[in-house]
C-alpha cells in the first residue's frame, strides 16, 4: 500500500530575476514498511526533495500525495497539519530541545501532535525504551552522546506512529559503529510499525539497510 507518492515534482527558486530549477520532474513512491535510501552529491536537490515530501516546501509543479491526501497545493497552515498527523522527522543535527530531558523532548512532540497528559508521557517512555534509552529518560541532551541523541530523535519521530518517516543524513554525525546500530534500530522500528521511511544519505553503509536505493543528480532521479 502506497503511503507516499510524488509525481513529476518540479521545484525552482527565484534568485533576483533568475529562476533556478532545483528539481526537474522527480517522481517517487514509497509503500508502508518500505525503506528507501535517497543518495546524491551535495547540491543534487535531495534535501529540497525531502522538504517537499515532508510538507515543509511546496513544489512549483507536480503532485504529492501523503497518506491518501494531495498536499502539493495546501496552505502553510494545512501543511503543518499534515506534518503533525502523518510525518516524523529525524535530522542530521538531531534538533533536540536543549532545555528538555529525553522524555520531555519526545513528550513535547506528542503534545504538539495533540496527545496530552499521562498518555503522552507513557507513549514517550515507551518510545525511548524501544530505542534502548529507558535508563536515560531524565537526561538533558547535553548529557547524552551523539548516538543517544539520535536515538532520542528517532523515538521522537516514531512515538506518534506516523505513516511516514523522513530522515536527513541520520548517521552523518556518528562514528560508523554507532551509525550502524542506529540504522539497525531505525530499520526495525520502521518495519515493526509499517512506516514508510525515506533516508537521505551520503553514507554507503546506510544502503544495505534500504529496500531500495534511489539516486538523484542535478535534480533528476537516475
Amino acid at each position, binding site marked *: 500500500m502506497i503511503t507516499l507518492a510524488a509525481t513529476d515534482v518540479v521545484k525552482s527558486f527565484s534568485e533576483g530575476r533568475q529562476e533556478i530549477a532545483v528539481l526537474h520532474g522527480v517522481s517517487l513512491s514509497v509503500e508502508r514498511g518500505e525503506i528507501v535510501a535517497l543518495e546524491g552529491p551535495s547540491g543534487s536537490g535531495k*534535501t529540497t526533495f*525531502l*522538504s517537499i515530501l*515532508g510538507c*515543509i*516546501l511546496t513544489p512549483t509543479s507536480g503532485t504529492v500525495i501523503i497518506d491518501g491526501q494531495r498536499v502539493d497545493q495546501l496552505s502553510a*497552515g494545512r501543511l*503543518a*497539519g499534515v*506534518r*503533525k*498527523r502523518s*510525518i*516524523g*522527522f529525524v*535530522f*542530521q*543535527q538531531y*534538533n533536540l*530541545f*536543549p*532545555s*528538555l530531558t529525553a522524555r*520531555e523532548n519526545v*513528550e*513535547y*512532540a506528542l*503534545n*504538539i*501532535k495533540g496527545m*496530552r*497528559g499521562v498518555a*503522552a508521557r507513557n507513549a514517550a517512555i515507551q518510545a525511548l525504551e524501544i530505542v534502548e534509552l529507558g535508563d536515560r529518560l531524565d537526561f538533558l541532551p547535553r548529557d547524552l552522546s551523539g548516538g543517544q541523541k539520535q536515538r532520542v530523535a528517532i523515538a*521522537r519521530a516514531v512515538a506518534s506512529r506516523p505513516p511516514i518517516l523522513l530522515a*536527513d543524513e541520520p548517521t552523518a554525525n556518528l562514528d560508523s559503529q554507532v551509525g550502524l546500530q542506529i540504522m539497525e534500530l531505525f530499520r526495525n522500528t520502521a518495519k515493526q510499525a509499517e512506516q514508510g521511511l525515506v533516508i537521505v544519505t551520503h553514507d554507503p553503509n546506510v544502503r544495505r539497510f534500504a529496500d531500495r536505493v534511489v539516486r538523484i543528480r542535478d535534480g533528476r532521479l537516475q
Partner: protein
Amino acid sequence: MVDLALKSLVHDRLRFFITVAGVAFAVTLVFVQVGLFLGLLDNASVTIDHANADLWVTSRNTPNIDFSHTFTETRVDRVRSIPGVERADNLIIWFMQVNLPTGAQEGVEAYGLEDFSAWNIPWHLTDGTLDDLHRGDYMIVDQSAVKRWGPYQVGDYREVLGRRLQIIGRSKEALSFTTTPIAFIDYWLLQQISPDLLRGSTTYVLVKLAAGADTNSVRAEIARRLPYNDVYTKAEWAERSRHYWVASTGIGLNMYITVFLGCLVGVVVVAQTLYTSAMEHIREFGTVKAIGGNNGDIYMILGKQAAIAAVVGFVLGLLQSLPLRPVMANIGLKLIIPNIMLGWVFAGTVVLCLTAALVAFRKVASIDPALVFRT
C-alpha cells in the same frame, strides 16, 4: 503538557535574570515616580480629605486650598440660616512670616478656626490640647516644620508677624503642597496678628450638612445667597486643589514622561532579550514547526515567556518599591501605592511584555522550517 516556554526560559538563567531585572527596574520606576506624585498630590488635599466639612465656600476662582483670598466673614451667617446646614464656620488659611531664633525668617501657613475639634483639624495631634488654643497667644505646629524651622519644643516661642506665640502642641501629617509648615492658631488671634488683611474677613466657610439634607439643593441655595463665592463639595474641592498643581506646574507632565520612559525601558529590555533569545533558538522554533507546530504554538511559547518575565519582574519591582516607603518617609516624602495602582501596573506590565514578544514573534513566524535541515 511539557512546558517548553518555562523550561527554555530558566535553562538560560542569565538571560532570564536580565529580562526580569529590566522589567523589575521599569516597574520600580513606575511605582516610585507615580507613588511620589500621588504623595505630593495627597499633600495638596490632605486637609480637605480629613476635615469634617461636606461643602467648602471659597472666594470666587480660588485655585487651591493654599492660595486663598479673603471675603467678608459675616457671610457665614447667611450660610447658617439655610435649611439643611447643621453647622457652618469660618476658616482662615493664610501665609505669614515667622522669625526664627537664628534670626532667619521662614514661612508658615496658618489655619485659623474657632473650634478646631468640631472640624477634625488637625486630625493627628501628638502633643497638646486643641481647646487650649483659645486661652492665649498660642499655636500648635505640625512636626514637619522641623525641616524648615529647625528643631523646636513644645513650650518654645516663635514670633509670627512680630507677635510672640507659644508652641503648645504638635500635630502630625498636616502638610501643604508648597512644603510651607502648617500652624493652627485661634481664629480671632489670627485676625489680630494680621489686622490689615484679615480683620472682618475669612477665606473659607466650612459647611456640615444636617443628616438627610440634600447636598445639591443646599449647595445651590448657598450659591444663590452668596453670588460672589464658589461652593464645592469636599471631593470637588480636593480634586480642584490637586488638579491645580498637576495642570499649572510641570510635575504632571514630568510624571507622565517618567512613566512613559519606564514603560519604554521595560518594553525595550524584554523585546531585545526575547528577540535575541528567539534568534539563538531559531532552530528550535524551526523544529517546532517541522514536527507540526503552527504559529500559534510559537506565540504560546514566546507569549508565555514574556508573561512569566512580566509576573516575576512585577513581583520583584513591587518588593523593591515597598521598602522605599519608610525610606522616603524619613526624608519627608510620601510614597503612596494604592491597591488600584497595583492592579493597573500589573496589567500594564503583562500587556507591554506580551507586546514586546510580538517583535520576536514577527521574526520567528517568518522562518522557513526547512532550516532544520541545514547543518
